[in-house]
């Protein structure tokens, strides 16, 4: 399955994976800076990626646990998923996985916690 990763600098990295490959591990094997702090055990959101439009719907819906963690991912978007929960299928041919740019903003709505 041919997919493309887009890193934080905007560089496109085409990658050829196999059906069943885990997107987080695939990215890491190809030197992309996708962190998997909890090692794919659904305990963090460091493998957060944006999935290209047509392919997003071809993924199985996230289980509640993934949604709960995505809620904590900085710069959450409609097409956000956790990379460690995406397994390659033929339907994902040509999919683009974009790494979020997070550097300074940690909240999706720009909110900074204020003391009260």
């Amino acid at each position, binding site marked *: 399955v041919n997919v493309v990763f887009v890193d934080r600098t905007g560089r496109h990295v085409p990658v050829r994976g196999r059906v069943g490959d885990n997107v987080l591990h695939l990215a890491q094997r190809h030197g992309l800076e996708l962190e998997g702090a*909890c090692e794919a055990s659904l*305990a*963090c959101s460091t493998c957060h990626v944006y999935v290209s439009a047509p392919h997003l719907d071809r993924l199985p819906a996230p289980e509640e*646990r993934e949604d709960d963690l995505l*809620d*904590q991912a900085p710069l959450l978007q409609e097409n956000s998923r956790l990379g460690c929960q995406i397994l390659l299928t033929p339907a994902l041919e040509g999919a683009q996985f974009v790494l979020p740019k997070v550097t300074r903003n*940690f909240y999706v709505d720009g909110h900074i*916690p*204020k003391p*009260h």
Partner: protein
Amino acid sequence: PRLCVVGSGPAGFYTAQHILKHHGGARVDIYEKLPVPFGLVRFGVAPDHPEVKNVINSFTQTARSERCSYYGNVTVGRDVTVAELRQAYHAVVLSYGAEDNRVLGIPGENLDGVYSARAFVGWYNGLPENRDLKPDLSCDTALILGHGNVALDVARILLSPLHLLRKTDITDSSLAALACSKVKRVWLVGRRGPLQVAFTIKELREMINLAGTRPVLNPADFTGLENAVKDVPRPRRRLTELMMKTALEKPGEKTAEVQAAAPREWGLKFQRSPHEVLPTTDGRRARGVRMALTRLEGLGDSAKAIPTGEMEELECGLVLSSIGYRSLPLDPAVPFDTQRGVIPNSSGRVEGVPGLYCSGWVKRGPTGVIITTMNDSFDTAQSVLEDLQAGVLDMSTSREGFGAVESILHSRGVRPVSFSDWEKIDAAEVARGKAAGKPREKIVDPQEMLQLIGH
């Protein structure tokens, strides 16, 4: 370039990692005041959340790598000063986190039975300075002041069935204390409302589903919120909807049965601000907390809690204040904003001190999970890399790095712990835990750690 990082928690390690990855010539030394590394990953993350600790594997790889060295048992600010580090290295990154907690500032705060959540978490996680806490768990009701994830962690550890805790890396002595615990009701009390809770959905869901317990949420706290949640960002909306569902929906027959039979319960109380911890008749222990009822002014995260004048008393024998961690100033050479409890900085560059940086909680304040700290550390590392690139840092002289620090430490009678020393301690902990079916049995006495490695 020779750089050093002060603090071996996630902030320290992620900053080191990022610098090492993006600069092939850099050498990074990580200093840590305890003999053992990893900071809050070891001492903060709850024992029943082992997957969150997997990040230790990544940090271990970094520590073992050629251009990185770990020096434990070195207290920066005492054993070696920041000024001395700045002479030995081209750049110094402060990532020493938040070792203290905010205080309530109310009468009765020092009564027996009142503890900071930070100390309680340190106690069950084997943090040496909290090993003798001996929290009194002989009452049936505990009040946790605060609505963050730490408050939920504490509630969950207090109420978890023992068979779940027994297989974790919770310390043996805490397990023994919890086995004798009489606590069967925990209230999490916050000054503001449901829309201002700071805990996150995964942790709340876990608490709602905790075996042997029944969630007690007052429907009156949640009626009328349906409109308020329509326009809030997704994370806040899903979190509020979960609380509303738990408070307002009738559970199915099976769930209702299970809940009715549950021996323990926990609940959320809102718009109550602690005014005074009330003493027992002998004046020594906590017997309850007098609360000021509040109303909310403003919306969302900036809503303020204003006392209405009405008061309420909540009975309890155990009070845990979970109102935030707090950083402390490290060294007179480092500017510190006592008001905000952070080192004044701009993208991690310490204000007014070139070559000095900060990352993690001491930079931004003590909130956020590992991913927040990770991103923040990368941000600081970027600043360091930019400054290296732009010639902002004085690279005209080579620096001796640990070579210079070593003789200073020696002259002060301090013997650093190496990473392979830590691995001996690690192996010993794992071996001790094996017999009990635990991932490890933490050693809580620093002297014992040092003896084990022959220091």
